[in-house]
């Protein structure tokens, strides 16, 4: 059977997120618990989480989480990392034994800083330097897969139900101001850990529910700019699109939403003249980055979170806010699990981005 990345696997899913605008910390089990009530939206073939603010001790360093199939892949990858970065700390990521989590790969974590001279020689900015190294490892080192590469954030994912994955990675021992979660329902899978979500590049992590019909149009366009879609998943291509538009083209997340979930022409025609010109500009300039088909996504990033539905709202997604804490999930029950007495749960319109940020930027 072909591995994920050699074949495209559609999947349905459950997603959830929690975000404290005040920068208050939650332990990971809050979001793990929320996923338990959406158990039936996954089928045990993938679950994962992303936490932000979890590595305050190393917040100036890039935290690389890596899966290895074998020790030779680890050796090769570490040799490459050594040549590109200063490795400040490395360790196995702590896990606990969970019966349902099987075929566990080697799971390592590296806190790194780009090698000064190499970075200067490369004439790249720091993030581009790191992103290229990650893409290089994932597309060329057989058996090595970097699944998290941001600062002061981390992705934890595996093949299994999300609640089991959360216990496996001891998420109750991490504290962060922002968490996203994903439970996966792939239609078929060889069960590769890298194929689980969230998908992340640098600080951006994406959890996604849906099967986008624009996939190959998006993939073939974004690959022009140095990205390699090694997993063939929607989430991967969405992450790259966001990274490209925000980091390389300097657009805001609101502007990105107007591109990937662009309003219909009939909606645009009703806008004010200035808005109409702007929306027309986006659709005219970035036609290949329009995403069609069902999706609900939660994008985690440094100091913020964005929730977005496709423009027809073909996937369920609800949001709520209470006491400066923002909640989002595929189903209301997951929000009620996190905040039982919440009363203002609502459903954003298709294509309407909901963006929340920390009130104080020092976090």
């Amino acid at each position: 059977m072909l591995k994920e990345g050699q074949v495209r696997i559609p999947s349905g899913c459950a997603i959830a997120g929690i975000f404290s605008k005040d920068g208050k910390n939650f332990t990971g089990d809050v979001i793990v618990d929320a996923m338990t009530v959406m158990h039936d939206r996954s089928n045990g073939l993938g679950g994962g989480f992303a936490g932000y603010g979890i590595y305050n001790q190393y917040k100036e360093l890039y935290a690389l989480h890596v899966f290895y199939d074998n020790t030779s892949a680890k050796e090769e990858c570490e040799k490459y990392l050594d040549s590109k970065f200063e490795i400040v700390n490395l360790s196995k990521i702590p896990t606990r034994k969970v019966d349902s989590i099987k075929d566990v790969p080697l799971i390592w974590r590296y806190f790194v800083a780009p090698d000064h001279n190499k970075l200067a020689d490369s004439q790249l900015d720091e993030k581009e330097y790191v992103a290229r190294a990650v893409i290089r490892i994932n597309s060329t080192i057989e058996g090595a897969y970097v699944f998290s590469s941001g600062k002061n954030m981390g992705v934890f994912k595996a093949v299994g139900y999300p609640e089991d994955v959360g216990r496996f990675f001891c998420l109750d021992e991490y504290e962060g101001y922002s968490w996203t979660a994903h439970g996966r329902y792939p239609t078929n899978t060889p069960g590769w850990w890298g194929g689980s979500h969230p998908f992340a590049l640098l600080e951006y992590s994406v959890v996604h529910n849906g099967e986008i019909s624009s996939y190959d149009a998006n993939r073939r366009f974004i690959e022009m700019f140095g990205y390699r879609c090694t997993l063939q998943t929607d989430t991967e291509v969405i992450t790259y699109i966001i990274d490209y538009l925000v980091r390389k083209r300097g657009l805001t997340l609101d502007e990105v939403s107007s591109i990937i979930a662009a309003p219909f022409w009939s909606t645009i025609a009703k806008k004010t003249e200035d808005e109409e010109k702007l929306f027309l500009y986006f659709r005219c300039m970035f036609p290949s980055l329009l995403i069609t088909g069902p999706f609900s996504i939660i994008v985690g990033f440094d100091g913020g979170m964005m929730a977005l539905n496709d423009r027809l709202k073909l996937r369920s997604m609800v949001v709520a806010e209470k006491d400066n804490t923002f909640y989002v999930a595929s189903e209301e029950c997951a929000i009620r699990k996190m905040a039982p007495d919440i009363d203002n749960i609502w459903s954003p319109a298709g294509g309407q981005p909901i963006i929340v940020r920390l009130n104080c930027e020092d976090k």
Partner: protein
Amino acid sequence: MSINYVLPLFDVLRDPARCIKCRVCERQCANGVHSYDHELNLMLADEAKCVNCQRCVTLCPTRALAIRESENKMRANANWRESLIREIYKQADSGGVLLSSMGNPEDMPVYFDKILINASQVTNPSIDPLREPMETRVFLGKKNTPIKRTPDGRIIPETEPQLELSMPMMFSAMSYGSISYNAHESLARAAEELGILYNTGEGGLHQDFYKYSANTIVQVASGRFGVHKAYLEAGAAIEIKMGQGAKPGIGGHLPGSKITSDVSRARMIPEGTDAISPAPHHDIYSIEDLRQLVFSLKEATEYKKPVIVKVAAVHNIAAIASGIARSGADIIAIDGFRGGTGAAPTRTRDNVGIPIELALASVDSRLRDEGIRDHVSIVVGGSIRSSADVVKAIALGADACYIATAALLALGCHLCRSCQTGRCNWGIATQDPELTKRLNPDIGYRRLVNLMTAWNHEIMELMGGMGINSIEALKGNRLMLRGVGLNEKELEILGIKHAGE
């Protein structure tokens, strides 16, 4: 005079029980096939003159007529096909180059027919175009300009010049001269009503049609016929014609008999003289020269109009397209080897060039590999026969399609492939006033609008089936295609998987 070895291709079958000798067939046939014998009170036919245009059959009020392929056959020979033998007889007779018209009719692979389209089942929903918005609007032009902002951070929504189309189709270049005034009027009015564009071809622009300028692409070809400042300014876009799918590598020849006074004025050449376009542009012997012409035209029109470079699909098309994408052109139009023509040497039409499907796939892949796909839009033609071909072309990577033969069919063309004679019984490929008046532009334009509207509906249905609600998301979306009965190499070039994979 020796014996004429060229025997009739067709039999004219007339049912005497039905024929009322009204002589409509006689009046309608510009080739003089039908005649009436007063003494015998009989309709006669000279089959040798028949081109099987179906005009008499269509207009016979009692349905007394049928045209069949002649049952008289030479002795069968798989190597020496009868068509080859006939051509040898013709050439032995005339000593000339064989002439043909319309697209290559030979039995060569049609890749569109070996590609199948996807649809949504279970894992994502199909979308019903009757109930949900389904968008087919397309912008053609450069998309690679930097994003600019005002000092307070607002985006300045300015782009390079773009062509806006309500649907991903345009009428391809057909010159006034090769086709009639009424045919041009039909195309121009249909383009205006549909929100798309038609193309003047290399014959200049009749003064009556300047009012359709917002829906007009003006062509600049190697003969530079009819090119002047007002002409360039009249177009919504300017197309430099480097080549044509039906006759790559050679120029054009409009016989003097078609250069009537109006045609001569539009082309700016004397009445009755042959209009011969050279094979190359004599100011373009390489890619750097093309760049100069692109920018000359942009200078002349103040950088307000996109410039299209049209080339025939030839073996090295991917590298050629890459060169064009770097030449400053906004749009590349590629014409496949099945593209039509009003006249071309038969050997060229039937043996030169490559299928548009393969050319398109390799150009799109190459431009992406080089990271310059967004520097240009790609328009393909030659030949796009149905809305399914349009959908497949866009999924392979085209931004829009050029439609010409299908448009002529809508106007009544029956593909008899005799345009070069100038005696088109349907009033399309002729300048004979007795014939041109047979095409009523009020009806013709309506039929073109109907055809494109119908195709656009079908495109929406196919998109909706795939769960795609905007044409942008179909462009280059090759996962939506599968091949059937194609070999590994063909699949590799097309960049698609085989059905079942």
